[in-house]
C-alpha cells in the first residue's frame, strides 16, 4: 500500500492522465469502482484483467465517450466530460477489434479520419503517407480495406494515431487475435511510439505481451484496480520475490552458502545438484562466487525473470474477490 502511494506521488508531477475515485455505474452495479491511477508522460501503462473487468469502460471514460458516474479524471489537464474535443484532439484511440469502411481504401479511410481531425488537404496527404510508411502499409495504401488481414487493420488503426500526432495513444486489446509474427511487429510499433515520447495506455489480457512493453501495469478485477506497479514490484508483492535463480552445481554445503547471500529469500533443493533460490535482486554473480568459494563445479546458472503470468495466476487464485480491496 505504501509503495503504491509512493509510486503515484512520484509520478503525479508529470502525470498526463490522473484518475481519482473514477466510477462508472450501470443501474446499481459498478462496472468501474472508484479507481485511482496516474500515468506519467512517456510511459507505457498496461491495464490488465479478465474480460468484463472494466478496462474498456475506463478507457471510454478517459475519452469522454461514456459518462462518468462519480470521481474525477484529467487527461493532459483537460476534463474529458467537459472538454472532450480538446482531449480527443490530443489522444489517439485504437478500439478493440477496430473497424474501417471496407469499401474505401486505406488512404481514404485515413483521409476521412484526418478530415474529422480538421487537417488541411496538403497536411493530410503528407501525414498519411508518412504514417502508412511507418506501419508498413504503403504498398497496400490504395487497396480496399475489405482485403486487409486483422494485423493490417490494427496497423492501420495505429497509423490513424500517428496521423493525429497524438500525445497519448490508447490501445484497447491491440494484439488480441493477431498471429505471433503480427504481434511482434505490433509491439515493435508500440515501442517506436514510446521512443518518440508518446504515452501509451494499453489494455490486454495477453500477459506476456504486456510484460514485454509495459513500464507499469494495473491489474483490474471486478471494476477495481487490485494491484499496480512495475512487473518487478508486483512480483515482489505477489510472489514475495522478484527473481528466481536456478543453480546447477556440485559441491558440499552449497545450499547453505547460497542461503547466506544477502537478498536471497529461500533456497529450495530440487535435486542433489540443483537449487532454486528466490531473491529480490539478480543474485547470479553472488551465487557464482559462492559456488566457486565452496570449490564446487558450477554447471548452470539461470535466472527467471518474474513472469506476469505467474503473478497474475498467483494473485487471482490466491485472492478471492472479497479480499481484493485489502490486498490493494
Amino acid at each position, binding site marked *: 500500500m505504501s509503495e503504491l502511494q509512493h509510486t503515484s506521488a512520484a509520478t503525479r508531477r508529470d502525470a498526463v492522465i490522473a484518475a481519482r475515485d473514477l466510477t462508472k455505474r450501470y443501474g446499481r452495479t459498478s462496472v468501474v469502482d472508484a479507481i485511482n491511477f496516474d500515468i506519467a508522460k512517456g510511459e507505457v501503462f498496461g491495464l490488465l484483467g479478465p474480460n468484463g473487468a472494466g478496462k474498456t469502460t475506463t478507457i471510454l471514460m478517459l*475519452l469522454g*465517450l461514456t459518462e462518468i458516474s462519480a470521481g474525477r479524471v484529467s487527461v493532459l489537464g483537460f476534463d474529458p466530460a467537459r472538454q472532450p474535443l480538446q482531449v*480527443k484532439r490530443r489522444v489517439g*484511440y485504437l478500439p478493440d477489434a477496430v473497424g474501417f469502411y471496407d469499401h474505401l481504401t486505406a488512404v481514404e479511410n485515413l483521409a476521412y479520419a484526418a*478530415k474529422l481531425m480538421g487537417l488541411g488537404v496538403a497536411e493530410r496527404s503528407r501525414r498519411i503517407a508518412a504514417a502508412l510508411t511507418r506501419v508498413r502499409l504503403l504498398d497496400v495504401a490504395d487497396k480496399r480495406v475489405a482485403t486487409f488481414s486483422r494485423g493490417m487493420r490494427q496497423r492501420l488503426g495505429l497509423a*490513424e494515431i500517428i496521423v493525429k500526432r497524438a500525445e497519448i495513444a490508447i490501445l484497447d486489446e491491440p494484439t488480441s487475435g493477431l498471429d505471433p509474427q503480427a504481434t511482434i511487429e505490433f509491439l515493435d510499433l508500440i515501442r517506436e511510439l514510446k521512443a518518440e515520447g508518446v504515452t501509451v495506455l494499453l489494455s490486454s489480457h495477453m500477459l506476456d505481451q504486456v510484460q514485454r512493453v509495459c513500464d507499469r501495469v494495473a491489474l483490474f478485477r471486478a471494476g477495481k484496480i487490485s494491484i499496480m506497479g512495475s512487473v518487478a514490484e508486483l512480483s515482489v508483492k505477489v510472489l514475495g520475490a522478484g527473481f528466481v535463480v536456478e543453480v546447477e552445481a556440485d559441491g558440499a554445503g552449497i545450499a547453505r552458502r547460497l542461503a547466506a547471500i544477502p537478498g536471497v529469500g529461500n533456497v529450495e533443493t530440487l535435486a542433489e545438484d540443483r537449487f532454486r533460490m528466490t531473491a529480490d535482486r539478480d543474485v547470479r554473480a553472488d551465487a557464482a562466487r559462492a559456488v566457486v568459494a565452496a570449490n564446487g563445479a558450477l554447471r548452470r546458472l539461470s535466472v527467471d525473470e518474474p513472469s506476469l503470468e505467474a503473478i497474475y495466476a498467483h494473485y487471482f487464485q490466491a485472492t478471492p474477490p472479497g479480499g481484493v480491496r485489502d490486498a490493494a
Partner: protein
Amino acid sequence: MRREGSAFQGVGAVFVKELSDNISSVRMLMLELLIVLTAMAALYEAITALRQNTAEDPFLLLRLFTVSQAPLPSFVAILGFLIPLMAIGLGFDLINSEHNRRTLSRILAQPIYRDALLLGKYLAGLATITISLTALWLLVIGLGLIFLGVPPGGEEIARSLAFLVIAVFYAGVWLSLAMLLSIVFRSPATAALVALGIWLFLTVLWPMLAPAIAQAIVPPDPRFAALGLDTPGTAIWTQLLQRFSPNDLFGEAMLAVLSPTTRTLGPVFLDQIRGAVMGAPLPFGQSVMIAWPQTVGLIACTIVLFVAGYVLFQRQEVRA
C-alpha cells in the same frame, strides 16, 4: 455547464463522405431505377391521355403530375408511395451499421461531437433524395416540353417547385423515422423490417382502418345515408384520423398545390362556398395557404422524429 467547441465541427466531412457513399452505392442505383421507371410509366400514360384531350387547360404541365390513367396511378401518387421506400432504403442502417462495422468508437474518438455524425449523415441522406427528386422533376418538365410542346408558365414552375419542396420534407419524415429505428435496433434487418412495416401500415392499412374507426366513434346517421350523403361527423373523424399518416398529408398538400382549382381539403357546407366561382383556379399564394398546415405537419413530424433519434443517440453507449 456548456460544452466547449462547436457541435457542428466535422459535419461537412461526414456529409461529403456519406453523400459520396450514398450516390455511389448499388442500393441507391436500384432505388433510383425503381422510382424512375415507375414514374416514367406513369408519365407516359399521363402524356398519352393529355395528348388525346388537349382542352383549354391553363395548367397543362401540372396535369402531368396529377393525371392518372388506369391501371397506373398518377405520378404524384406513385411518388407518395415510393419516396418513403427510398428514404427507408437510405436510412435504415445509418447508425447501426457503424456499430456493426465497429467504426463508431473510432470515428467518435476524433475531435467531433456525436451531433456532427448524426446531422451529417441525416443531411447527406436528405441531399441524396433531393438530388434524385430534382432530377426527376427536371425530367418531368423536359418530357412535358418535348411531348406536349407547351412552354411552362411562371406559376406552373412555382407550383411544381412547391411540389419539390414538400416532397423533400415528406422524404425527411421517413428518413427521420428510418434513422430513429437504426438507432433503436442494433440489427439493420430488424430496423428495415420495422420501418417497412410502419410504411405499409400507414400507406395501405391506415386508409382502410381510419374510416372504420371513425364509424365506431360517430356511427353513420341513417338520415344522411338515406340521402346518399356521408354523415358529417363521421367524415370529419375519418379525415382527422387519416391525417395521422404522412402519406395523407403529402397527398392533400399535393392536391392543393398541383390542382389550382382546389379550394378546400375538408368537407364544407354549401354556405361556406357561397360566392365562389367553382372551377376557377386559385392564385398560387392561396393554394400554398391551403397546403400550409399539411406542410407544417410534415416538417413538425420530421423534427420530432429527428429529435427523438438525437436524444437516444446521445445517450447510447458507444461500445458494441
